[in-house]
């Protein structure tokens, strides 16, 4: 059995760092693991996704339609966009954060209303983590990703991993304490 996690968001939100830390923890538990990212155009404010699959033996690195056990979204419209990749019985974890894409910012189209309600209707097991807001309350909007990581770790119900020291390994020393606080905030959700 493999577990598939699809992390989605907007370029620059730190989804890749989140998946690197998660991957390191899963490897320390002895799992085989594959992680897939799409680079290139994705940095430029576009939609981004990284995919992690772990289990006894993993073959395909990427996740197709209705294959994700967990869909983790850093932005609510991105959760909507990638929802078809979630297994009908899968778990959705999403921020209620709102980031305008250029067509929205330029007034070519609107940002939809009622996204969270729609997600709740379609994926009843949804966990909404207001990580963007919590990160700003902690004093740095950039730790949003580590708060989401904490919430995801808790939902995965994994064996024992020293997550704080892994997080400390991957973030710059000067923001280490803030990130550990963010991890703790996420783990409590």
């Amino acid at each position, binding site marked *: 059995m493999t577990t598939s996690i699809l992390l989605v968001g907007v370029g620059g939100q730190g989804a890749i760092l989140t998946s690197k830390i998660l*991957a390191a923890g899963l490897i320390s538990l002895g799992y085989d693991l594959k992680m897939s990212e799409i680079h290139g155009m994705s940095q430029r404010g576009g939609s981004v996704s990284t995919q992690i699959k772990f289990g006894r033996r993993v*073959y395909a690195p990427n996740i197709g339609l209705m294959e994700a056990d967990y869909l983790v979204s850093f932005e609510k419209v991105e959760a909507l966009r990638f929802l078809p990749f979630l297994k009908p019985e899968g778990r959705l974890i999403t921020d209620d954060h709102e980031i305008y894409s*250029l067509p929205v*910012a330029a007034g070519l189209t609107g940002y*939809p209303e009622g996204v969270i309600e729609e997600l709740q209707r379609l994926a009843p097991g949804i966990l909404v983590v207001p990580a963007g807001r919590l990160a700003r309350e902690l004093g740095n909007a950039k730790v949003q990703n580590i708060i989401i990581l904490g919430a995801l770790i808790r939902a995965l119900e994994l064996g024992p991993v020293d997550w704080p020291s892994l997080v400390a390994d991957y973030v710059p020393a000067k923001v280490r304490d803030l990130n550990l606080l963010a991890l703790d905030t996420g783990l409590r959700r």
Partner: protein
Amino acid sequence: MEKILLSGDEAVARGAWEAGCLVAAAYPGTPSTEILETLAGYPEINSRWSANEKVALEVAGGAALGGVRALAAMKHVGLNVAADPLLTLAYTGVRGGLVVVSADDPGCHSSQNEQDNRHYAELAKLPMLEPADSQECLDFTRAAFDLSERFDAPVLLRLTTRVCHSKSLVAPGARPKPPIQAYLRDIKKYAMIPAFARPRHAAVEAKLRQLADFNNDSEFNRIEWDEPKKIGVITSGAAYQQAREAFGDTVSYLKLGLTYPLPGRLLATFARAVDRLYIIEEGDPYLEKAVRALGFDCLGKELIPLLGELDAALLRRAFRPPSPARPLTSLIQPPPRPPVLCAGCPHRGILHILGQKKKDLAVFGDIGCYSLGVQPPLEALDALICMGAGFSGAIGLALALKAAGDQRKVVGLLGDSTFYHSGLTGLVEAVHSQADLCLCILDNSTTAMTGHQANPGTALDLMGRPAPALDMAAVVRGLGVPADRLSLVDPLDRAAVTEALERSLAAGGLSVIIARRPCVLLKEMRGAFKYRGRVAPDKCQKCRLCLKVGCLALSFRDGRASIDPTACLGCGYCRSVCGFEAIEMEEAQ
């Protein structure tokens, strides 16, 4: 050694290092870029960004002829540029092992086409290896150098995006002392005049027969039997992983690693042993055609899409009866989120000006960040084909418009890295043929789209060593553009760009505009802008003109334009667009 998590690209670099590679050259291109970026971390290897892929392969090929192990890497379309040396290096063969990496991009994640470069192996008559994960990337790369020397042929290592950019666990090895062979002058082998090329062609054909025979028992391929042998699947590369994921142990697999020349005997043994044969491959029916040519009936592209990337879910749907399960979908349509020019991007100014003039202009674009100016709201480019076409395509377009009596003026556009890649020859042509057009070089002092790689115009090389930066204006003048037909402007200076463009187009004949400002994401540009934009609420007339510049920091909120201070970098371009002086600059916090 402990297993480590590596991407396919990183594992290829590691494999080349373990094989004793001494020279590596590439032109950056997604998804191949990280191969050379990783190799740059090994000081024993002379790694470099070459001006283009043809130069990279010639550098690596020359090194291999000289007796050391060498590697050239490129994205799939880059191999088109390097095809010329590739096909004749097949004739000369090598002395030190030569590995040519082609990273294909099924699904066009970051490319202008999704060509299947497996056809190049057949065209160039070269052995081709296709790894399926990072461990195979390392093992196959290391083995490719041995194979290259054993059969005296460059080896094509064909990757795809999912292999390049997926990370999986790899057991690394050690690096023995690099093999260096003495250079031997051998004109019958290395100087391909017709008299010598004819016998070398015969040698190539003989090598291919030996390779096909070797491949029947080679360790690059393996059969994974399922009992009873009802269904057989022939597959390779990333498609193998998707097939294993979809069908598990319920079918038998022939997993091919050395996919040219194909192992006829092995294919026949497998095909005869199973009741039904399926070919699972991404892209063109490359394996399928070969299996059919051997006289075996099989199913392939009737079931599996030829377009785009494969995944396991797609294979399950293709092979199994339709399931009642439907993907979760909402009636709320998520707004598109395309990649866009960064806030503060220097290209924004000149692209916005070209877009505003699109009724009077035809703009031939090129490959790079300016491709982000194709879509609304910028709509600056008419065409985009390949590197260099921004100049030479414009020459042809101008001829056509002239023939049709079309009054639109033609502008050709490319970047600094693309200029050195293949814009030089187009400029030479434009000068010599007295072309009537304006050519723009958007010089942001880096190769930005692929993540800031060095190019001949930058002062540091791939290894981080100081390098002489070419003086672009001097190069342009040196190629025959008179000084009074060359303008140097700041692409964010709306008045200066507009003036240079109008003056150039009004005068007729050939003119060149170098629009120079370093990419805002470069480290040295941190803190370059001291101010941030702010919309004065009482002055905004809600005309939305500023939104046409296509900046993520600008949006229309609460009935007027608004600037997000955390996204704005303070380039001030939007300020020059506003007709009501409603955008003010205030000191950055």
